[in-house]
């Protein structure tokens, strides 16, 4: 099956890219950063090709035209992996922070190998006909918008992690070479904030889109379903972070912990909820 083989190839490239990211973290030469980027490009290319095959199979079912095939765990994880890699390449390009690859790319790795595992568990790449509730143009927008925000928050989490490490390094009185390779503490703090500030409106718009869709499909904008609730919880935690930083002027460790707590909510919203939700259990094998 072409789609799965190409996807596995993409996963291998992402792994290589992540490995180069770690090497770059400790070695001196710029060439590792270049290798990392080339692996990401190659991975994305294979991924997009794999996605092409997926679309072909998905749209073979008439009811699925012309929707995005993310109504399954495999589809969602696959999208997430690609989005993480793409968002990272963009962020890295703008801020020249390839050094943070080691902190961010593992998520792309986890998502892509998670998808491969899922495919082996299910025996296929989960191409199903959409249940009637999902047969709406909203499926092309609402999940994608939310997942892009998750990727941005994933990048912010990586930056936060680098910040904690950097703080520990400088505090230790014997900073290792890593300290001089990572960006400055204040710069990391500022980048963490800016990434979250960028992703926050996207997250909330995604939630609102979900509400509008729900109003059109089930008659109520908000029903406190587990997925809805956890997405809201994520937004509230990040809103708390933004207020503590902008209004109360928090910096450093406390702020980072709050932002990292926000990301654990993201992860829970994406995965954990599938075990709780009655309505959003589409992603589990119902």
């Amino acid at each position: 099956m072409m789609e799965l083989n190409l996807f596995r190839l993409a996963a291998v490239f992402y792994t290589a890219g992540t490995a180069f990211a770690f090497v770059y973290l400790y070695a001196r030469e710029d060439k590792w950063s270049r290798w990392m980027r080339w692996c990401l490009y190659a991975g994305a290319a294979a991924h997009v090709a794999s996605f092409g095959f997926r679309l072909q199979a998905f749209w073979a079912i008439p009811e699925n035209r012309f929707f995005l095939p993310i109504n399954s765990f495999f589809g969602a994880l696959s999208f997430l992996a690609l989005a993480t890699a793409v968002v990272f390449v963009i962020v890295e390009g703008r801020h020249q922070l390839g050094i943070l690859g080691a902190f961010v790319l593992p998520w792309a790795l986890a998502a892509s190998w998670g998808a491969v595992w899922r495919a082996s568990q299910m025996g296929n790449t989960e191409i199903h006909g959409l249940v009637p509730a999902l047969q709406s143009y909203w499926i092309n927008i609402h999940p994608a918008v939310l997942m892009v925000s998750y990727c941005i928050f994933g990048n912010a989490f990586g930056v936060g992690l680098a910040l904690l490490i950097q703080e520990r390094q400088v505090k230790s009185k014997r900073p290792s070479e890593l300290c001089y390779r990572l960006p400055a503490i204040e710069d990391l703090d500022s980048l963490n904030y800016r990434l979250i500030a960028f992703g926050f409106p996207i997250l909330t718009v995604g939630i609102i889109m979900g509400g509008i869709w729900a109003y059109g499909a089930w008659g109520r904008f908000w029903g406190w379903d587990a997925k809805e609730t956890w997405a809201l919880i994520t937004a509230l935690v990040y809103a708390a972070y933004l207020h503590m930083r902008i209004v109360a002027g928090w910096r450093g460790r406390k702020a980072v912990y709050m932002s990292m707590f926000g990301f654990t909510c993201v992860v829970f919203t994406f995965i954990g909820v599938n075990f709780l939700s009655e309505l959003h259990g589409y992603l589990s094998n119902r």
Partner: protein
Amino acid sequence: MAQSLRIFRSVKFNVGLVLAIVAASAIGTFLPQLSETPEKVDLFLHGNPFWGKIFQALGFFDIYHTKWFMGMLGLIAFDIVVCKLWKLPPDNGLTALPPEFDPKAIEAKLDTMEAAIRQKGMVAEFSCRAAPAEAMSAVKRMIVGSGYHLEPVVGDAEERSALVATRHRVQRWGSYVAHVALVVILAGGLIKAAFGFVEMVPVLEGRSRELQNKRGWEVFVDKFTVKYYDGTRNPKLFSSQIRVTENGKQLAEKLITVNDPLDVSGTRFYQASWGAGGMFREVILEVGEGKFLPIPQRKPTLIPGTPIKVTADVMMPNFTLTPDGRADTASLDLKNPAVRFRFDVGGKLTRSLWLLQFNPTVAFSETQDGVLVHAPDPPMKLADVEPILFSGIQVAYDPGYPLVAAGSIAWLLGTVLLFYMHRRRLWVLINPAEGGSRVLIGAWSSRGDVGFKKEFGAYVDRLKAGIGPAGSSSGPGAAFAGNLEAQS
């Protein structure tokens, strides 16, 4: 603002309140909720009597509708108004003058401004040969064309003057609009809670049901259709032809399907779900090779050529066994239909047999106390079932929705303004100097200095090129062309 309101205006307090809402919301996702799965609530209470009682007393099984939860939401709305909305966005324009200065004394104002500019993170200073007035007009020309809004020049342009210019001033409204939007959305939610309703109305095909929330209203389902994806039991489509009447008078009719509801003056009828309740018109029993016997529900039917009468009485749409071996259904969709057949001869029950439509080799005998036992090699097959389906119609009335929708748009607008728009301010102070003037420029950006530094450097370079030592000739077209922006 009254002292008593101080706590409500504290960021720490409100962050704490938000985290409390987060905790309560999370609890509602882990514990079963009455509005969604009341049977699971019962199970929990039975299984955990100690904690169950405590949670029940605290309202944890219907947490989102408890007074205290809604009170927290209301408090947040109140706090937003009291913190943020009672005062329009302050204008962070010219530095506020220290009280002892006479606001009319321009010199003092300019002095304060000069000191304030020098304290900014981004400052540049240079001399030029142009006279102060010329320099000021050159600066104005340059800035105006780049989307900056100019405030009136302070001071005497011939001597010493200052200019403040802002780009994307509208950004300062972002936070305000976003917070207004939140209050509006919460208000919409409140209205829905007070005046709206949601009612799940399961209606059997061919029948009707009265609404509980709207006196006299009745929903008729004339026809219900469900279509499956080929070779699977996954539905690809289900729809109902419905009619809505009020006190017998027809109000509307429509073929509704998922994502396509019927709106009757604000009350909307959604095709939300469907299922089989266990009723059926008839089943087809294959009693022997090629011999099919149609059997209506609960009607004892004689098997031709035998003295045996068979009655089909119970159907499970998605057959499963309970832990203690009884027949049950896992859900209401027709994933695994099974029918119970009671065979009697001369009025005496001889056998009770469960047959599965999609698993003809599997059958169960039911004992007198209802326990199922495997029955190998069943002599008959359940060939077909014609169930009577019910259409799950969700009836909803949400008078608050327009507010929620308006609030959502406002939220989008507010956050885009707040986070994505880049408000920039330039202060230009021109002092006369020997041989010309001295230009002092300060800058501020809502996105922080890091992003703005390069751009600021470009501005300064252009200004220098325009009015610096080389290009001090008079007249507009001299020495520079174009605006401050290097690119758009």
